[in-house]
């Protein structure tokens, strides 16, 4: 495994040591049956949200799951041993969850969040802010390392390579704080990786040549169908995007969490519309089995659900 060199920029001095050293100090793996219990409200700040097949998974002082889209939350485990910044799941791998953590690297669960194990020896020992699993290949993983950039694994996390520096916004690199693999053809022999930052969203083809704006239709996005120009086009604000999510089966429809609420695009990011303003910087998840089922949660644990692709929202209720 090749590790990055830290001398070039001061930001890289934040990163040191071997990822394995930190990962080795992770919380002991194993299910925690005593933690499991009846439905109740999570204590602590909600930090991550994902759908594992049809089950909602929530990180907040432990891992919680809900079989009914958030109506009933069941404590699953004490979690991976550190605050979870992001969760990722893949519809082809039910039960597998990846957790990007602040201090124990990338953690993996193969049992829906009951037990957790180090998943990424070789990553820099720095906080991980986001994780995504490629929609076209569950062995391809992407992780955002704070102060550093995007790392990629093509073997399910056994080995990692630095893939791309961070997006440049107003001539300053910004951290990636949300990641989504988008299965639309990039025109460069692959697909897209979308990223949320403190200053809007960006995207890069998975050959990692260049970060681009979501609205770009430049010469290097060839081969993709572009939406008809809208003028004036409703753009995604250049504000903090803390969540980006989609159902793999509908890659042109994405949801983004911003301070102003839930935003939705139906054209891969060219144009956006705010569809719910009730929650501040919501975490978002789309049910891969039902692309119209969208769940939003704020840090305080308030959960809203949409069953019509974001048009209307309500507190989740058991079916």
């Amino acid at each position: 495994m090749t590790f990055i060199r830290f001398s070039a920029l001061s930001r890289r001095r934040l990163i040191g040591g071997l990822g394995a050293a930190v990962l080795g100090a992770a919380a002991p793996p194993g299910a925690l049956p005593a933690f499991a219990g009846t439905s109740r409200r999570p204590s602590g700040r909600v930090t991550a949200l994902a759908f594992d097949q049809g089950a909602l998974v929530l990180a907040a002082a432990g891992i919680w799951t809900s079989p009914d889209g958030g109506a009933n939350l069941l404590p699953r485990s004490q979690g991976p041993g550190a605050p979870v910044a992001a969760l990722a799941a893949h519809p082809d791998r039910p039960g597998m969850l990846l957790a990007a953590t602040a201090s124990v690297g990338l953690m993996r669960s193969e049992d829906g969040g009951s037990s957790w194990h180090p998943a990424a020896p070789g990553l820099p020992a720095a906080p991980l802010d986001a994780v995504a699993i490629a929609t076209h290949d569950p062995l391809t993983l992407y992780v955002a390392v704070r102060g550093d950039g995007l790392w990629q694994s093509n073997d399910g996390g056994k080995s990692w390579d630095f893939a791309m520096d961070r997006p440049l916004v107003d001539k300053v690199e910004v951290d990636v704080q949300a990641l989504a693999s988008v299965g639309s053809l990039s025109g460069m022999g692959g697909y897209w990786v979308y990223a949320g930052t403190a200053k809007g969203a960006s995207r890069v083809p998975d050959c990692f040549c260049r970060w681009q704006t979501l609205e770009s239709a430049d010469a290097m996005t060839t081969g993709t169908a572009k939406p008809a120009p809208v003028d004036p086009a409703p753009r995604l604000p250049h504000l903090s995007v803390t969540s980006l999510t989609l159902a793999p089966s509908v890659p042109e429809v994405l949801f983004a969490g911003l301070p102003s609420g839930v935003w939705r695009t139906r054209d891969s990011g060219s144009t956006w519309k705010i569809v719910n303003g009730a929650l501040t910087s919501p975490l978002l998840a789309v049910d891969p089995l039902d692309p119209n089922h969208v769940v939003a949660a704020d840090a305080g644990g308030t959960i809203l659900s949409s069953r019509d692709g974001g048009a209307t929202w309500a507190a989740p209720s058991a079916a």
Partner: protein
Amino acid sequence: MKAMILVAAIAAAPMARATDISPETIQQGQALYATNCATCHGASLQGQPDWKRRLANGRMPAPPHDVTGHTWHHSDRDLFNLTKLGVAAVVGDGYESDMPGFGGKLSDEEIRAVLDYIKSTWPARTQEAQAKITAADKAAQP
């Protein structure tokens, strides 16, 4: 938008697969590459060191043109335009790059020869993948 119009105005003649190119053309391209490109992209097409990380000026280093880079993910049209016009002109939107346009220095045929040489160094599988990207690009053009 300006860059887009500029790019669209250029008739990017189709480039053949490297296996269809004469040895003389590849030899010519190799010589031109050594003179015009190797300083940044490396004599062995290896790119600048640590090429995935920005330079201090915020620009990206010159990437490899061998199979470890992303050159082969670009269509023939993109490669031609990037070389002739430079990255900043093609991308637009104020994007900054150290890659200049070589249109004032190399003829279109010479640019194609350089690209043919680069492509000739790729494994057959990579050449095929790049040919598919080119075909998709052509199909998408109006």
